[in-house]
């Protein structure tokens, strides 16, 4: 696979900050808003957004982790069963504004599962979607993000990976393209 960095660490930082200010524009002081990261990789975006938001606002922002495994539509279509991660939502989402956070928006199926999983915790007032990367033109379902870090045009054979300095050693977004023969 050929690697191409499409967002370096400098722009990565700027993108996260921009997303935070966009959130503040719509949610003011976050008194009625909660952020929910989708397991597993959405949690990394959530952690970084929470860190920046709290330093800008000077107050704690309510955050939770949501696992969507049991709500997926590809159960029994894989060789290996889908093994769940932890869900940590220790607050009520009833009548709250919820921002679902994930790293890459691709087919929209994960977000569909996320919406179903979220509604098991109550009836939120409004739900929005924030993603670090939007692979547009690749949707299977009519789902769009409200806050987007970067839009990329990709082929189905390509892969986009959001990498983190805590895990992979550097903040960046990489596009993997299969090598062609000639």
């Amino acid at each position: 696979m050929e690697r191409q960095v499409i967002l370096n660490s400098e722009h990565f930082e700027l993108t996260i900050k921009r997303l935070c200010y966009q959130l503040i524009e719509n949610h003011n002081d976050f008194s009625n808003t909660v952020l929910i990261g989708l397991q597993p990789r959405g949690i990394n975006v959530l952690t970084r957004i929470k860190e920046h938001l709290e330093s800008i606002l000077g107050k704690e922002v309510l955050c939770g982790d949501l696992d969507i495994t049991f709500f997926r539509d590809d159960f029994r279509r894989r060789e290996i069963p889908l093994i769940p991660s932890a869900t940590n939502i220790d607050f009520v989402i009833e009548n709250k504004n919820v921002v679902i956070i994930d790293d890459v928006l691709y087919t929209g199926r994960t977000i569909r599962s996320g919406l179903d999983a979220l509604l098991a915790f109550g009836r939120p007032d409004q739900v929005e979607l924030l993603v670090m990367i939007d692979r547009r033109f690749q949707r299977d379902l009519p789902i769009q993000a409200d806050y987007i870090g970067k839009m990329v045009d990709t082929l189905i054979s390509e892969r986009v990976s959001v990498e983190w300095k805590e895990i992979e050693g550097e903040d960046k977004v990489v596009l993997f393209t299969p090598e062609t023969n000639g």
Partner: protein
Amino acid sequence: MDKLSVEHLTGIEHLTKNDIDLIFKTADAFKEVINRPIKKVPSLRDITIANLFFENSTRTRLSFELAEKRMSADVVNFSAASSSVKKGETLIDTVNNILSMKVDMVVMRHPNPGAAKFLSERIDAKVINAGDGTHEHPTQALLDAYSIREQLGEVKGKKVVIVGDILHSRVALSNIYCLQKLGAEVMVCGPTTLIPKYISGLGIKVEHNLKKALEWCDVANMLRIQLERQDMKYFPSLREYSMQYGLTKKILDTLSKKIIVMHPGPINRGVEITSDVADSDQAIILQQVENGVAIRMAVIYLLASQIKRQ
């Protein structure tokens, strides 16, 4: 590998430690699900499960049914008391008739040891053993070990004594296999007549003095006397058994450390355990019941993930 090594759950004997760890990890997630405001997930919405109970059961049957319904499976129930088994139908014929109705999984309790394995070799559906005679009761052992892990952090290195009618107990055998695979030390305690002769071959300790056994252990799993399976008198009277092997608050208070008391149910208060022990904070009997649903959800989920749809 995040995949079970078996295609059916007929007993703990055939599971690996990795299988048990995988079931526990999956059960952790289901335990969170069953404590949500909406306790239902859609994972098994196109799976049909038949619960075949050829023997009486309250707890296990309810627990399985709840686990199946919490995952949105379609459930059909069958009990021998109200079926054609009474009219002379064989096990295979009964099950094949049910399977013709397109059932994907069978949860079966049967009085004959090996019935679940027999069935799993002859039908084209997943089989879960919910107790086969005096042989195994795998989901009970899994939920017992899971409850110990929840209380003590891990099972490895812990000392567990199983007290009571070991001879007629499927819970005892499954527990021994499960606890040993997870690295616990196991002891059985009871009158000589209720301890099977071959038991030392399983690599466990045997003790006939309850006080000594309790001093040794971190966890005591108290079993019921299975009068319905006893074809002869194994001890003079229930009163005498209770005096020798009944767990009382008085004995618990004389121990040098605080142990955990478990019971798979149904409890015979005043026989193997007194009310003040069963209702004390050392007993985790009701936590075991709650964990039972999560464990059964995990087992059904992992086996159902092997069923492929075209």
